[in-house]
Structures are given as C-alpha cells and as structure tokens.
C-alpha cells in the first residue's frame, strides 16, 4: 500500500446530478491492489451512486476514472466488467425466476460448440464456486426467489468472484445476513484481499467494516469528508466524520469536510 505505487483504480472529481440534486459532488477516491477501502456515510450520502458510476450503472456528468493509471471509458456495466470490475449490489440484482447457475453466468453464458447454452458446464462451475462460499448450498435447480436471504446473497457474491475480478465492489454485502453468515463474508473478504483483489466495501454501519478495512472514506451530502487509514483514526473520530462531517487530524480532508473550525 505504498503511496508511490499506481493505484488499481482512481476516481477523480466525479460529479453526477439527478434533476438538480447533486448526488455526488466532486468526489475523489482511490484503491490499491489487495486493499479494502470502506466507503462510509449515512443513507443518501452518495456512496452507492458513486460506486454505481464505477460499475457502469450510471453515467457520470464530470470526472475521470483510471484503471492501472490509464483513463478508461465506462459507459455501461459491460465496460466495467471488461476491466475486471465486479459488483455485488445492495439489491443483489438477481433474476428471481431462473436458477443459481443461470444467475451466476447471466450475460456471460457458457456455450456449446453449437452455440446453445451449456447448462451442464455452467452448473458444474456453479457447484464449484458455491461449494467454496456456502458448502451447504444444494438448491441448484430452484429459481432464486425460492432461496433464503443468505443463500441469495451467496449467489450474488459467487457471481462477482466467478470471473476473476480485480476490483470488487460490495454494496452493503451483509445487510441481509445473520451473524454467522456475516462472519463468512468477512473471511471471504480477507481471502480475496490476500489474492490481490482491491475491494470497495460500502456500509452505513461503521462497526461492520472498521476491522476489515485498510482505509475509510467518508461521504456526506454527496461530498467526500475525508479519507484515512484505519490505523490513524479511531472509530469515534470516524463517527464524527459521518455525523458531523468533522475531519480529524489523522485524515486527509476532502471538499466535504467541515471548514477548519475544529
């Protein structure tokens, strides 16, 4: 995580407005290889919107995205996936009426030499990756809507890691999970991190992510309050950033920081 290394991905001066509301206003954030960056803030602070720009779901009004130091054009989810950016959405974004394997390979189906769907191969791979995430998962033939919240979540996570992601975006990944499953996700995050994948972890709850994250970036009202290494700030200081927008000494202030009154 040396500062001299080129970041895996850089978002600089990103802005987007929806009908006069500046959902994201001049936000900049970066992520290195094997790093977990927690993106924190209240509901409606602009975290999900910022990240949806990176994943191609929204088109930015201004700003630049760089992957490996090179500017890239991300205009739709396909572009993002092309650069190895995979996303686990808060809503999971699963097609409820088809089975797990169909969801895992949605948009990237394996085909037989005759150009038809190779369901057998897809299911075999699905069993492999799901076995890694959730060994007790057995319901490969059921439509996803028949699964429990935790099982659906594992399907969404499996889809993101199936295609050798380099940059993983997890939007409230544990929102639907119980304590045991949450711990599983934490283990997974550590494992992926050790494989050199960069991870954006989005949450409105600091307790979920503080121990997992290497750095935190706090947003408020669409602006970045500040960025800090988790070694340099305390949980309470980060809470102050989230609630008041007050940037502590250990953090690098952003445009959204409360002007240097404190």
């Amino acid at each position, binding site marked *: 995580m040396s500062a001299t290394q080129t970041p895996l991905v850089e978002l600089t001066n990103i802005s987007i407005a929806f009908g006069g509301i500046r959902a994201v206003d001049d936000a900049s954030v970066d992520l290195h290889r094997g790093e977990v960056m927690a993106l924190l803030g209240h509901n409606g602070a602009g975290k999900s919107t910022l990240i949806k720009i990176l994943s191609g779901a929204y088109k930015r009004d201004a700003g630049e995205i760089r992957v490996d130091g090179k500017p890239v054009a991300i205009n739709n989810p396909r572009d993002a996936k092309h650069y190895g950016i995979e996303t686990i959405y808060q809503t999971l974004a699963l*097609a409820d*009426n088809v089975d797990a394997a169909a969801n895992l390979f949605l*948009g990237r189906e394996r085909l037989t030499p005759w150009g038809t769907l190779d369901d057998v191969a897809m299911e075999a791979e699905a069993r492999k990756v799901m076995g890694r995430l959730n060994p007790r998962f057995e319901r490969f033939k059921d439509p996803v809507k028949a699964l429990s919240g935790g099982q659906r979540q594992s399907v969404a996570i499996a889809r993101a890691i199936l295609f050798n992601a380099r940059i993983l975006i997890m939007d409230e990944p544990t929102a639907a999970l119980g304590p045991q499953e949450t711990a599983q996700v934490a283990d997974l995050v550590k494992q992926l991190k050790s494989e050199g994948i960069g991870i954006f972890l989005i949450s409105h709850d600091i307790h979920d992510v503080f121990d997992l994250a290497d750095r935190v970036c706090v947003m408020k009202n669409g602006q970045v309050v500040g960025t800090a290494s988790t070694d340099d700030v305390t949980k309470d200081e980060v809470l102050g950033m989230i609630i008041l927008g007050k940037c502590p000494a250990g953090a690098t202030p952003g445009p959204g920081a409360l002007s240097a009154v404190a």
Partner: protein
Amino acid sequence: MSEATSAASADRARTTEAGPVAGFLKATELDTRMLGMIGALVLIWVGFHFLSGGLFLTPRNLWNLSVQSSSIAVMATGMVLVIVTRNIDLSVGSILGFVGMVMGVVQAELLPQSLDFGNPWIWVIALAVGIGVGALIGGLQGFVIAYLGVPAFIVTLGGLLVWRGAAWWVTSGRTVAPMDATFRLMGGGPAGSIGATWSWIIGLAGCVALMLVLVNGRIQRKRFAFPLRPVWAEIFLGAVGAALILGAVWVVNSYPWPIGIVRRHFEGQGLPVPEDVFIAHGIAIPVLIALGAGVVMTFVATRTRFGRYVFAIGGNPEAAELAGINTRWVVMKIFMLMGALAAIGSAISTARLNAATNAQGTLDELLVIAAAVIGGTSLAGGAGTVAGAMLGAVLMQSLQSGMVLLGVDTPLQNIVVGLVLVVAVWLDTLYRRRVQ
C-alpha cells in the same frame, strides 16, 4: 454416507405420506399446471361431444380443429416471449392483415408479370417478402418500445390502427384472390395435407425424438449425479408420449378426402374413379408449420442465450441490465420475431382463405394474448412456456368450434370465450398462490 441414506429414506417417507398422486407427480416430474390444462381440454372435448350428439370427437372435426388452431398457435409462440418480458403486442392481428395483403399482391399481381403462372418460386418469394415485412414492422415497433421508451401497450395499440389502415391502403380495400396454387398448400385442405404414409413417418420420427430426449436427459443427470426419475416413470412418460403422438396421427389418418375431391383427383390424372377408395388427409401442412414453430421457439426460449436473456429480463429488468445484457436490443429482437411469426400466421390464414382481405386477422391479437395467458404466461413477466401457449390456442379454438357445432349464436360465443378467459386466469392466480 449414512446421512445421505437417511435423507433419501426421509424423502421416500414423505412421498408415501403425500399419497399416490403426489408420489406419481414427483416421480414423473410432470407440471401440474400443464396437466390441469390438458384436463380442462379433455373436459371441454368430452362435454361438447355429448352436447353435440357425438359430432365433436370425430376425425373430421379434430382435423379441422387442428387446422383452425394453427395460425393463432404460431403467433402465440412469439407472444409468450413478448409477455414474459412484461410487454404486450396488440398489433399482431393488424400485422397479419397487412402482411397478408402484401403477400397476396406479390403473388397474385406483381410476380405473375415476370414469372410464369404457377412458377414454384412464387410462393417462396411471397412468403419471404411477407416474413421480411413482418419482421421489419415488428422491428420498427420494437425500436420505438426499446430505444425511445414508449410503452409497448401504446406503441402496439397505435400499430393496431396503423397496420389495419395500411392493409386497406395496399389495394384500396379490394380483396386479392386467388392465391398461388403452391402457396395455398400452407392453408391445409385435402391437397395441403401430407397423406397417411408421411404422417406415420413423421409420427414415428416424433416418437424416436421423444425417446432420445428422455435418454439424453437421463444420461446428463447421471453425469452430474442429479436425482434420476425412477425407470418406471421414464417408461411411463415415453409410452404415454408415443401413444399420444401415434394416436393423433391415427385420428388425422382416419379422415378421408371427400368423395368429390377424390373423383376430381382421379379424373385429373385421366384414371378411372375406383369404388370405395379411402384417401386419408393425414397431418395438415399448417399444423406441421405450427408444430415446427413450437419446436423452434421452445428451443430458442430454453436452449439459447437469447432465450435466457428474455426470461432474465422478465424476472428482473434492472438485474439483467446490470449483468451487462443489452436489454434494449433483446426487446427489439423479440418484437422482430413476433412480427415474423405474425407473417407466418398470416400466410396460413391467407392460404386457407385463398384470398387476402383487409379485415383478415381482426381481433386475432386478443385470441393470441388469451392463448398465451391461458397457457400459463404470467402478465407480471418472467414465466411462461411455448407449449402451454400452443395448448391455450387449441383450447380457445376448441371452445369456438364446439359452440359453432352446437349452433350457439355469435354474440353468446363471445360472451362465453370472454368469461372462460377471466375464469381461467382467476384459477391460475389461485393455483400460483397455493404453490408459493
């Protein structure tokens, strides 16, 4: 190991507890909804048979029923995909009328100027032009729906008026007749049927295909250690399927050519007319076209990437978009396909009538939508089968034919069909609620 065994025995225990019917359904993996539809169809058939004093379940009536259902059945296969993606197409009847006029003018007025009368290419060119025009119209509507964001209901409601008006414009309302002799075969009739021998051959080929599907399914399941159907269930499915196919062939082969046509046939060849000759109709060509469309569309819906996208879009349009699917292009392609299928339906009904009129296909869109919905396609999107929609088309046509046989007045026919549609969907809603 012991855990697996106990789970299996628990499974078996549950099966026996649930009674023989549930056990049978579980073993054969038959869709209960589909069985219910077949049950309703049998009920309607037997009911009409008794009410009409034995006129309904005759080879002649069933053969006619199969021909009359074909055009709607072909279009219903496409409507399934349209409705699965939470869209609707109200314009298919008008597209049918317009394309019919175009095909009529091409074969009866344009082509004879350069090709000899009865040239075998005439029907090919006419049909190709028709399918091309149908796909173009569908593509145009699909473009407005997918890329300009106008709701399908509005676009196709406009299309309903536009293409009906266009059908009139082609010849200023004049009916075009007669059709090319070869083209006419697509409409059925004694000449437009394939005869007894070929019907048996196709029936047997269908049986062989059914066996291959069952065997292949079993091999694939074994490869991945999925639960297998019991052997008796596989044999039962194969036997019932084969019996149904061969039974259907037997029925259409029991319907002889009318004596007048037999006489003309032999006289036309300069042969003496034999006594007591029995020439079977066999499977009608429009029925073959419909069955072909059903097989192709089932394949498209279940085995291709396009079909997978269609269902994913129906299940969750946003998720499909986020998964990187070009949802707009998929929707546009669905409407193009629908237009092409409406053109094929148009060829069947134009050929059957031996004329193209500007009123052809009026209200067909409602029959097609009703067939798809009765066949289990959910208007909420994401669910539906091609086979179900085709069965729905047969069911609608059975009601109509039956009432004609009984001499029911046309207004009352409409009332009954309308009520049946509403009741069928209501029952389906109840069924779905219970399943969930």
